[in-house]
């Protein structure tokens, strides 16, 4: 069951070693098996589990979380040299030359992911009990959620790129199933397909990366590949190619430019799904992948530059578009896109930023999940209305939602003392510290992003909870906003606590960075700061305050129309942002339509060309034989004559040959 791999020189500097599993770690597979069993019971049990399905699902998630905690503290008790525990389960592909072992790697990096996934996952399971209470498909919903948990855990626990890829595909499947959970809505079905297609692009990238690894190193296991990188067994070009193809996979899963278009559309799924999969966990898999492959990215400066460019574009793009939408979930989705951009920015900085990326990822997991659950609570209380222009003044009716959403909101804009303040500030600081022109550009982009984040989050917060009411409690479109039941508010409160304290707990004293050292190497020490950190913090706060002030002046002090002004009345920038900066249109015009024409042409040429030839031959032979069978008259003497003629001709030919 256990195997010991000697692993030296992995990580930036710290020489660490993977040790075999002992004790509780022998049962690491239980982490995945519990939710998987939950999904199996719910899917195979059918209607018999309708009444208890949500409880079974929640219990499976909670059990996985508790076991994750046990493993985490066991790992915590070990010395830092023995904190990478690998347990082999079975040999999947024992083909000559390619040997793939399915094994689990429980190390500091995967441990924090396990806790985030199962912890937030359990909270959102509990929330969904209330949110989906009246949905006839609730059992199926919980089954898919459990399936997602198992897939995501496989993704972060695998010790081999190929096994990671299996988890990668399985989360894609769960995401697809959950986006189109209300598949009778055409928009949801389309959004699910779109998510699937866009993710295919990234999957191809990931697959090519795996193939490149196998072709150059001969193995796809983490230890094997990272050892080869450490021994410089992979040329710089190949290493860059691997890193870039991995980045393609990461960008598609994490909604990064240019593959971000699926993520906002994925908001068609139920809100708990938006919170769990499309904000807190699955979409951060790309960050995980880059942090996990840190030896590869550390080794390729060129690839990291591309990561930084992608991140910078995504941060601005997400922020700008987020300012224009009125749909509360779409705004949060674009906010997710830009926040993951920050994480990419951090991991793109190399050894200086891997830990910062994970840090922001964890903090973001808390506050963005909390924000989505709050949005879900508002949508639930407002009878499935999502347009923030039709909200207003809701704080009086939903005090708990108001407070929890508010704390998440303060955390994301970086209010001093809350999560985002610690984690985002660090990233902005690291961006400036990169030095040179690129450092200044990245730093300014991150700073501008912080200001825009403050603007659009304040805008959506004020539109929803403050200002005048833009709904009525009478008439045909009457709304009766009410606070959600305790089963929904309790997870929101827990996540609000996380939003407030997680960042500080993780950052202060460098606790998380220290913890992650065995997995991702020691953070590179920064020599001299480009800008004094204290000055930068004040600067960031000023920029964020500016963003808030802009939103306050525009959306609190001035009346807001309940219907969005038409495109002709707003600035061109707003029009562009409303249309996703025309990126969807671009994709449609440049990629989708030509593809459609190509397939139509191929179908046509197949029907006319290939099928035409085949059918033509068949028709020709058929017609010819139809004529030729007329020779079969049924008169014996005709046959005799033809035989005689044939014989005479044959003999004549023979004689002719002989004579010549």
């Amino acid at each position, binding site marked *: 069951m256990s195997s010991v791999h000697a692993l030296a020189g992995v990580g930036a500097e710290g020489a660490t070693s993977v040790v075999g599993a002992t004790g509780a770690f022998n049962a690491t597979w239980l982490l995945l098996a519990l939710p998987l069993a939950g999904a199996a019971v719910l899917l195979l049990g059918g209607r018999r589990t309708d009444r208890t399905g949500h409880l079974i699902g929640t219990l499976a998630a909670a059990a996985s979380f508790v076991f994750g905690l046990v493993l985490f503290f066991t790992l915590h008790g070990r010395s830092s040299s023995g904190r990478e525990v690998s347990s082999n389960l079975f040999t999947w592909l024992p083909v000559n030359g390619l040997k793939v072992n399915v094994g689990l790697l429980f190390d500091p990096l995967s441990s924090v992911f396990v806790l985030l996934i199962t912890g937030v996952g359990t909270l959102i399971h509990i929330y969904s009990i209330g949110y989906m209470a009246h949905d006839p498909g609730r059992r199926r919903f919980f089954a898919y959620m459990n399936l997602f948990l198992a897939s995501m855990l496989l993704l972060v626990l695998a010790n081999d790129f190929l096994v990671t890829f299996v988890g990668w595909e399985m989360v894609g499947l769960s995401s697809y199933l959950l986006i189109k959970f209300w598949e009778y809505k055409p928009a949801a079905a389309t959004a699910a397909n779109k998510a699937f297609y866009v993710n295919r692009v990234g999957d191809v990238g990931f697959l090519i990366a795996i193939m490149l690894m196998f072709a150059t190193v001969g193995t796809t296991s983490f230890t094997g590949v990272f050892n080869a990188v450490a021994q410089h067994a992979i040329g710089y070009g190949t290493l860059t190619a691997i890193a870039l193809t991995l980045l393609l996979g990461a960008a598609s899963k994490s909604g990064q430019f240019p593959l971000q278009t699926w993520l906002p559309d994925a908001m068609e799924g139920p809100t708990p799904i938006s919170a769990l999969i499309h904000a807190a966990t699955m979409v951060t898999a790309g960050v995980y992948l880059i942090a996990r492959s840190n030896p590869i990215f550390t080794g390729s400066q060129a690839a990291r530059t591309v990561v930084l460019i992608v991140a910078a574009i995504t941060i601005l793009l997400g922020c700008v578009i987020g300012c224009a939408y009125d749909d509360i979930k779409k705004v949060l989705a674009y906010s997710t896109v830009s926040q993951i951009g920050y994480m990419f920015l951090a991991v793109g900085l190399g050894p200086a930023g891997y830990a910062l990326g994970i840090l922001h990822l964890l903090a973001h997991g808390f506050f963005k999940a909390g924000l989505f659950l709050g949005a879900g609570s508002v949508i639930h209380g407002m009878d499935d209305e999502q347009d923030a222009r039709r909200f207003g003044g809701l704080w009086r009716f939903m005090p708990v939602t108001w407070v929890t959403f508010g704390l998440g909101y303060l955390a994301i804009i970086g209010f001093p003392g809350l999560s985002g303040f610690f984690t985002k500030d660090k990233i902005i600081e690291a961006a400036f510290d990169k030095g040179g022109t690129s450092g200044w550009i990245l730093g300014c982009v991150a700073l501008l992003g912080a200001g825009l984040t403050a603007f659009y989050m304040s805008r959506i917060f004020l539109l929803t909870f403050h200002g005048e009411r833009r709904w009525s409690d009478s008439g045909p479109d009457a709304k009766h906003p009410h606070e959600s039941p305790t089963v929904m508010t309790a997870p929101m409160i827990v996540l609000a606590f996380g939003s407030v304290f997680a960042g500080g707990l993780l950052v202060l004293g460098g606790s998380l960075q220290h913890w992650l050292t065995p997995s991702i190497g020691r953070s590179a020490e920064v020599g001299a700061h480009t800008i004094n950190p204290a000055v930068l913090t004040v600067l960031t706060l000023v920029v964020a305050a500016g963003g808030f002030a802009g939103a306050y002046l525009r959306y609190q002090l001035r009346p807001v129309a309940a219907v969005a002004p038409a495109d002709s009345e707003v600035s061109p920038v707003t029009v562009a942002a409303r249309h996703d900066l025309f990126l969807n249109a671009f994709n449609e015009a440049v990629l989708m339509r030509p593809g459609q024409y190509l397939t139509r042409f191929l179908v046509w040429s197949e029907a006319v060309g290939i099928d035409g030839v085949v059918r033509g031959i068949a028709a020709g032979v058929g017609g010819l034989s139809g004529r030729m*069978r007329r020779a079969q008259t*049924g*008169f*014996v003497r005709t046959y*005799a004559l033809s035989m*005689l003629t044939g014989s005479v001709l044959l003999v004549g030919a023979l004689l002719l040959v002989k004579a010549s």
Partner: protein
Amino acid sequence: MNPSNYLVLAAILFSIGAVGVLVRRNAIVVFMCVELMLNAANLTLVTFSRIQGTLDGQVIAFFVMVVAAAEVVVGLAIILTIFRTRRSASVDDVNLLKY
């Protein structure tokens, strides 16, 4: 005696047989014409055997006779059966097996 006379005779007999097969309608007569052709062939075989001074041709002639006898047995049986069902011995009446 010049052996080519026998060959000429065989050719004449074969041609008579062939024409008979093609022009006559009565199955029995057609049959007899087939026999004529076979025996013309036999005559050729024996003649060449004589010319060559070997016995091969004569041996084959015996084979042909045996096969011809067997053929007659089967052929006459078929003709008889057809005659019983269709009351006709004309080969043109038996033309159902066609396109």
